[in-house]
């Protein structure tokens, strides 16, 4: 179908994501969020002795079902999107990245940075494993991510979520302007 083989404008994507806030409350009476599942996976599979992991993760199994669905959705969509035209990312961003040595703009993710082979390089390990680690550590420390804080939290007028979102942004700017130029030249 055509809608699934093309990219959507922000005013389609954003409102659809926003609807997850009321839908999760109606269905589960819980808030829309994703990063709590990193803790659930630890509690379910690794069973660490630390107090942080002593809770009834089985009561939160629905969250694991939800994120498993996200992975399936990503799989389905990537298949249908394979033939889609390249996304119209700003030329200014592309030239800035090009000057930092990123040159593969053929898909949603720079293949030269996120291939299997890149995992054998220091740069790849820092960006893939290091970046992932910071996402897991930071979201648990902040008690929420873009979903739980930036969307659900701000939509329900919570001060903590406004602070969290500003800090996500500060971290992102530090990473973009101070760390990325250094890491990309590793």
């Amino acid at each position: 179908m055509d809608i699934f083989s093309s990219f959507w404008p922000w005013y389609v994507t954003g409102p659809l994501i926003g609807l997850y806030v009321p839908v999760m409350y109606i269905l589960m009476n819980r808030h829309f969020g994703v990063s709590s599942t990193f803790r659930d996976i630890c509690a379910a599979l690794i069973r660490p002795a630390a107090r942080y992991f002593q809770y009834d993760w089985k009561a939160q199994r629905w969250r694991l079902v939800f994120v498993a669905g996200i992975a399936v959705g990503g799989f389905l969509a990537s298949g249908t999107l394979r033939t889609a035209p390249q996304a119209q990312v700003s030329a200014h961003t592309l030239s800035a990245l090009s000057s930092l040595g990123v040159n593969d703009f053929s898909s949603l993710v720079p293949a030269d940075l996120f291939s299997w082979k890149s995992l054998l390089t220091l740069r790849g390990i820092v960006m893939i494993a290091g970046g992932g680690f910071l996402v897991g550590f930071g979201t648990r420390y902040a008690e929420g991510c873009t979903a739980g804080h930036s969307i659900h939290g701000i939509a329900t007028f919570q001060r903590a979520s406004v602070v969290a979102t500003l800090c996500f942004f500060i971290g992102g700017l530090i990473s973009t302007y101070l760390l990325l130029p250094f890491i990309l030249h590793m």
Partner: protein
Amino acid sequence: MVYFIVMLLGVLFGIILTNGEVISWFRIQEMFRFDAFHMYGVIGSAIAVGALSMLLLKRLGARSIRGEPIAVETKRLQKGTAIGGIIFGVGWVLTGACPGPLYALAGSGYPAFFIALLSAVGGALAYGLIRDKLPH
């Protein structure tokens, strides 16, 4: 039955994140370089629709499907909200993915993101292990 609906919502969410280019490393770069409105539009309109629909549910006195009154969960403000927030922001730019997109990318045929997802679980594990020593 509820699990089935949650699964379908998850699948749909993965499709939304992919077709909406939220999983795009380039779109995240573009946002942090202030070069386009796309991601601001996505996040801003998501917040607006979320807020309006929650106000509407409140106005209607809506209940969950199990008949409970809807109880909005509060996010507490603590030192980690800021420190953890900055740490997450740094990682968000490196992987180009926040947690939702991390799951979508892990499923979408970019195998390196499976490692990124495992690393995120490792990050949560590390946090849980040293939690008592961190300022909150």
